[in-house]
């Protein structure tokens, strides 16, 4: 998967969350900025979700390889993913959970306002 594809996916995923929350993301500069912020938030969370699935040994390897070698983080994370049981299912659940959580929060905050 190249950089563009992951950007497309995150963009699409974030857009769906905003639409589901009843927030339009088309047209204005403000809405573009909003989408960008949601994308940043999704990326940060997904990163942490992935890191949280690593075993202590794997976490140690990531730290060591990234700090000492000229390692490609994407390749490293890919190899880690293959070692984690049901990694794809866990990540799918994390996505689902994040989606539901953000939508609920957005709706709640919108209602409060």
């Amino acid at each position, binding site marked *: *998967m190249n950089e563009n594809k992951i950007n497309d996916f995150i963009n699409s995923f974030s857009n769906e969350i905003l639409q589901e929350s009843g927030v339009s993301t088309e047209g204005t500069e403000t809405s573009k900025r909003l989408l960008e912020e949601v994308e940043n938030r999704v*990326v940060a969370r997904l990163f*942490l979700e992935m890191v949280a699935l690593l075993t202590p*040994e794997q976490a140690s390897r990531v730290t060591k390889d990234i700090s000492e070698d000229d390692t490609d*983080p994407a*390749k490293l994370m890919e190899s880690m*993913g293959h070692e984690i049981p049901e990694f794809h299912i866990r990540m799918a659940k994390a996505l689902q959970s994040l989606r539901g959580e953000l939508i609920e929060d957005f709706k709640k905050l919108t209602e409060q306002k």
Partner: protein
Amino acid sequence: MLTENFKNFNNLLETRKVEQRRHEEILLEKLEIGGNCDLFDGSTLELLGKILQDTEEKGLMRLKVFNNVINWIVPKMAGVGTGAVAMDEGSKYAAEIAKGYLREKMLLEVGSKNVPMPSKAVETITQQVTQTDFFGTLRDTVNSIANTAQAALVHATEKVQEGGAMAVNYASETFINNIAGPTTEMLSKPPLAVGAFLLGAGIVGGGLSMIHTMRERSGFGLIDNLIQKSYEFIENGKISEDSHDPRLDLIAYFKNVSEDPKHLGHKLSQEEWLIFAGSVRAARASVLHDMTQAPRIVVGEEVKEGINRQEKIVEDIVSNQQALAESDIALATEILSQFGEHLGKDIDPIKQKLKYDNNLLPKISLYSKVFIRGGFDATGIPMAWRIATFGFKSAHKAARVATFGAIP
């Protein structure tokens, strides 16, 4: 039906445009490194597409012999309702046992009291069974008819060298001649239902036996052997550390067969090709499953101390994650603050409380995305997510239409 299947495969080929893999090494490398190899890759789909398009009769798996035998028996059952039902139930019983079993194992298993009988058969048969060794009789009947079927086919293909329709007809005739006596005897014996049940189970046993022989004669024998070893491996796991992995043998052989224009001389029926491809799919799925298992790590004392230190780091990460959940809400608030004009509310006081450093976000995004890209490469999630989303939206739309009528 076949035309429809072929269209579906063609559609798949057109839409997926999967890169053709020319060497089994590439496939195996993909399995080992990629971990997300398609279970049916491009060459498999192409092969199955061609097979389904091919209307020429190959192999003898069409069970014409079996059909001929059934056509011969059915008129004899006309007007005998109980017998017909019992025979049907006997067939189901044997067929149920045959699921997932090798032919030899199935024949041994028939007649075992551990295998539940169909409910209707139990109702029909148990009332009438007076013999103490009913299951023994059942096993003997199935084995007898199975052996008769196998012998008839061997005899027919030896006598009719060219095989094909003539051998099928000859085998049917030989088979019928050989079981005519026992069949008539069974159907005339009281209680009729018992005899019919035995006969039904026996016919299925005979059919399986004939399939077994047909596979060997059509060149499916070698493939069948690879498939059986692969299934045994999947079912029982690795026997020893240095044992060969028959799943990879099957995958590699299929690769060779599918890429050779003459399919290495194999002339299989459509059913056999599908069995072959389906078994390769199961083998691939099993290999992929193994490769996503966490490796067993033998941990020494020194390593354990290191792990304990790392556990502290992980705990911190988890702890941060919990804190992050709160910051999610906070950030959502901040995001919504950009809609201040639209919402008509002043939420600056909330923003003051957040103390969130927006300058960090670009860095978080930049570095995190690289990791996420790698992680997603191990999952194939983006595609699956879009499919799931499409399905959800379609279902949602359908529900709306069903509830409120057509959406303008």
